[in-house]
């Protein structure tokens, strides 16, 4: 497994991060180190191990459909850098970002 500089740039773009050209080599090396380390798992015999997406020994953690107390509008907006008409004010939304 080898991650290229191009792939690192692509992943950075998806995460809305800007990586200066001079730091790129560092990140490429770190990406490969991390993936290489995790890649060691690939050498293990997992024939008899069930696949899982969760290491916690829990399942079916659910709550009843009973209403709690939400935040007030004032509380909800108290961390917002800018607000308007009871809502969070955000910069112009670029088309093509949504679902």
């Amino acid at each position, binding site marked *: 497994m080898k991650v290229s500089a191009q792939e690192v740039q692509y992943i950075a773009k*998806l995460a*809305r991060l800007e990586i200066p050209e001079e730091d790129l080599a560092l990140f490429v090396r770190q990406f490969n180190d991390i993936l290489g380390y995790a890649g060691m798992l690939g050498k293990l015999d997992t024939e008899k191990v069930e696949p*899982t*997406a*969760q290491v*916690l020994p*829990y*399942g*079916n*953690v*659910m*709550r*009843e*459909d*009973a*209403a*709690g107390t*939400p*935040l*007030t*509008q004032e509380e*909800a*907006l108290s961390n917002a850098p800018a607000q*308007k*008409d*009871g*809502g*969070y*004010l*955000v*910069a*112009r*939304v670029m*088309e*093509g*970002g*949504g*679902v």
Partner: protein
Amino acid sequence: MKYETIIGLETHVELKTATKCFCSCPAEFGGEPNTHTCPTCTGMPGALPVLNKKVVEFAIKTGLALNCEIQRYNRFDRKNYFYPDLPKGYQISQLFLPICRGGYVDIETDGATKRIGITRIHIEEDAGKLIHSGASISDSDFSVVDYNRSSVPLIEIVSEPDLRSPQEARIFMEKLRSILEYIGVSDCKMQEGSLRCDANVSIRPPEQKEFGVRSEIKNLNSFRSVQRGIEYEQIRQAAVLDEGGKVIQETRTWDEEKGVTHSMRSKEEAHDYRYFPDPDLVPFVAEPEWVAKIAETLPELPDARKERLTGRLGLSAYDASGVIARLATADYFDEAMKHTGDAKAVANWILGDISAWLNSNNLEMRDFPVAAGNISAMINLINKGVLSSKLAKTVFEEMLKSGKAPAEIVREKGLEQISDAGALALAVEKIIKDNPKSAEDYKAGKDRALGFLVGQVMKETRGRANPEMINKLLREKLS
């Protein structure tokens, strides 16, 4: 049409739970902006989601009603993208292991039954709402975000590409709404966005086996726009092919006002959602015992109800379909049938005068002010000959105004039908005397003159005469 149209629908349904999918904030529609939120549904660092059990029950119930297999082992995945209506930077969804798979819905099209496959149903959370400062996104300098809807539970129902016309797509959506209403998992209000649909549309020449390149149409917010949007799209794609062009895979949005679809963005430009299992949520298992318990809560579904109406009650398939389509209407019918035996008359009133009144007042059946029992009582008065069908309209209008029982209205307004032969004979004689010319005309063989005379007797009795009896009496006297 020279091409065949292939349609698959993705329907988003907001579930009618009291609380949100992963927190205890109210899930109800509306409210002042940002008054139904908490740290979890606004994506505050450290806040942890806990699954609402009712959401799982509703998803399973829907799956069972749509003949799906229920996935035993379930988990949630994160769909990552940046947009201000999504405070966490990801939507919790089920990509890899949807809770339901492989079902179907039967629809009636051109008098035949057609089976439409359901590929999958998965659980996910809704996004917040953006209010743009300008007329559209592109001419807005800023937007205001309301997270009341953020994390309201949704199920997405994905159909197989089995639909072949815009009309079929519409019928399918209407059938889906019926079923969802009957099982009570959603209030299915398209105008409030609790039922939304995207359509995948492609066309192909009839001899071609593979599907053509599809476009995805968004913003189909009413049954009418589902049909119109797809109608437009099949014509647009046909024009592209006819000119020797190629349909490109893209997302398009339906513009209801202009009646066209616009390209939103090209799908190839990498939507990399980087799905991965959500580590904040533990897996859940839908044990067969639980699923069986939910199955017991399934009510009579639209198809079974229709069968009951056409079978034992003898309604035509057309009338029965009209009655059962909406739950409130079907329930109104059943309630009325507790007080009369005349199913055909109940159906006629519901699909005729009652529907017309609701439409002209822009109301739904659940808003209809007259008790079902009163409609039945009115029908019984007609069937007993106490009330003429003509004057029943007056009683109907009066019931809408005053809410009084029909017998009371008939008494108060003196609307009782005159079927007393003696009284009618007097009126008939008077009319013959007053209209000698018409009487002669009839005797001379002009049948139309009889209609005129009947009308005059009706007028004389202020519409209360029994029309059949007048006819009979007039014929006798003039023969």
